[in-house]
């Protein structure tokens, strides 16, 4: 849910909405993280060290009982099983800034080896996390980063560049390499949206995409009704439109619903970033051929492997260190201890039923 706040009037609602955003991946932050603070200098890493067995790996998501979070930590549980480690899940019921602190303290007392945390607040958890690190616990932030100097590594779900590239790639495939495309974004001032759109424009300027023409960027304000109307407007204004790219979950669902019930169905393709549960209907009725999003299960999975690699001494969180993460293959630690999950997962009619989030 890449929602943005809509009305000042609904401040109360908005504060609850923040819960929703926070729970669904904190994508507005983190993506463009380029302050180059030096990674924590720890003990030197031995890339050939064996992964330890029986590691105690604890996950502390933003909040429990959130479908998206459940899928994330579910991936962590699978990985902990593969590593023959002990998986533990704790977490607060609300995603407020300070709610995770007491859980971290408990985890320290339980002498866990690894804590995977999706920080509700980058700074509020810091003192506790540093205590944990002094006790020898490795900290892997995922989904939403903790401050750089109080975690060992951060699993970044996707880079701005990666998302922009894959959006253009899908649009190009659906348009057959040439034709008019349009973007249906959220609000005109959404940071992450605009960063992705910028990357898309750079990609479109490349010679191999010369035949693709971006005719308009419309804004649906992450509002169903408004996105609906904007999709209608795009289709009326540009009769030769081949693809609508909507990098927001609200926009892509609204555009798909509109096209699936109009006579544009089959003539115009929809793609972008969406949630499989929300899009299943339109993928099955043929309106949407493919769309993308990072796979939350892979985030948890990678976090567990990164934690095991840290605890086993394979990596220390320094840039350039490499480790293997089971079925996902080899990863390299980037600047400031960031590990990028990779390009987003593409969902199609063939694979969509394997995902439930």
């Amino acid at each position, binding site marked *: 849910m890449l929602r943005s706040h809509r009305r000042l009037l609904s401040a109360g609602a908005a504060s609850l909405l923040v819960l929703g955003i926070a729970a669904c991946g904190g994508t507005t932050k983190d993506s463009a993280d380029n302050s180059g603070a030096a990674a924590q200098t720890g003990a030197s890493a031995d890339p050939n060290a064996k992964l330890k067995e029986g590691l105690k790996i604890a996950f502390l998501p933003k909040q429990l009982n959130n479908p998206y979070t459940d899928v994330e930590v579910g991936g962590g549980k699978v990985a902990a099983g593969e590593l023959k480690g002990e998986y533990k899940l704790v977490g607060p019921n609300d995603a407020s800034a300070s709610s995770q602190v007491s859980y971290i303290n408990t985890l320290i007392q339980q002498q866990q080896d690894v804590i995977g945390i999706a920080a509700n607040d980058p700074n509020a958890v810091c003192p506790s996390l540093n205590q944990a690190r002094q006790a020898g616990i490795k900290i892997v932030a995922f989904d939403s980063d903790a401050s750089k100097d109080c975690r060992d590594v951060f699993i970044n779900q996707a880079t701005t560049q990666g998302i922009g590239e894959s959006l253009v790639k899908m649009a190009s495939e659906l348009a057959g390499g040439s034709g008019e495309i349009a973007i249906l974004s959220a609000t005109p001032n959404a940071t992450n949206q605009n960063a992705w759109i910028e990357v898309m424009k750079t990609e479109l300027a490349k010679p191999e995409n010369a035949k693709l023409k971006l005719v308009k960027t419309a804004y649906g304000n992450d509002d169903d009704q408004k996105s609906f109307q904007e999709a209608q407007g795009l289709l009326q204004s540009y009769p030769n439109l081949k693809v609508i790219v909507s990098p927001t979950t609200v926009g892509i*669902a609204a555009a798909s619903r509109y096209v699936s019930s109009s006579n544009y169905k089959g003539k115009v393709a929809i793609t972008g970033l969406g949630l499989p549960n929300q899009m299943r209907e339109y993928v099955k009725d043929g309106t949407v051929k493919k769309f993308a999003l990072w796979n939350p299960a892979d985030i948890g999975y990678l976090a567990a492997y990164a934690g095991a690699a840290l605890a086993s001494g394979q990596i220390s969180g320094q840039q350039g260190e490499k480790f293997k993460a089971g079925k996902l293959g080899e990863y390299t630690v980037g600047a400031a201890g960031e590990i990028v999950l990779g390009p987003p997962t593409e969902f199609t009619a063939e694979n969509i039923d394997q995902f439930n989030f």
Partner: protein
Amino acid sequence: MTATATAPRHLLSGLVKVRELGIILALVLLVGYTAASNPRFLSGQSIRDILLNTAILAVMAAGQAVVVITRNIDLSVGSVLGLSAFTVATMMSDNPGLPMVVAILVGLAVGGAAGVLNGVLVRYGRVPALVVTLGTLYMFRGVTYSWAGGQQVNADELPRHFLTFANDAVLGIPWLVLIALVVVGGVALLMRNYRVGRELYAMGSSPQAAELAGIKVARNLLGAFILSGALAGLAGVLFAARFGTVDAAAGTGLELNVVAAVVVGGVAVFGGSGTVWGAGLGALLLTVIGSSLTVLDINQFWQQAIVGALIILAICADRLVAVRIARSLRKKDSHV
């Protein structure tokens, strides 16, 4: 006495008619201009889209118009829509076999219950409607949030007959549009031709006089809020069927569009005048503005500015009408 009484009433209805004529004129101009620059604006698909988009707003505007005519306001309608949409969507996804009629009845009931609360607080709590419904706006939204949490009902969880309801048509007219027409027509008829309707106008013109005249103000006021709530609940069902995706934020901020439609439609904010038809036309005008500005490729920021200008224009027209009536009444008096 009778002669003097009928003359101003005649004049009044004449002016009100002129006001609605203004909306129709604005609509014709807007559609004409947009169609001239992009003929597809008048294609079957486009007209269907505009009518479908109007339907939900028009249903809510009809209820709101009644409340505003009594010199009150119902700001909670957006939240009531959200609550009803989430209730009905959850119910339909848990019991896919339920017929559409049940969904509509449940939506009406949820909205009606919300309306009872509003009405009771306004009438018996003696609190201004603006404050009460601002409170319930947050309350109902809060209830929906605490119930839904981060959950969302998606299109693939909803039964097919529920989703196709939004697009299915009888004699070429989509159900959604038909419902909106029946609601606006029915409420307009009630307000125009029935005793209770005239009483509501009287209450809006002068609450104290209405009370002294023996009008059952409490009953009528409660009825007006229940109607507004129930129609917002109905709109919630239509919303769920049309959009297929319902989360706790459904309909956030919609109340302002509804009030705008009512005011632009010529219902005076001080109560006592305006028609439900006008409110329905107001809803249509706002929707057409939204659609035509996207088609004309005009920056959407202008859209809000234009809607705002229209509201101010409508209020100015209100004031003008009031001044003219007052003047003409004075003249009549001097003649007699």
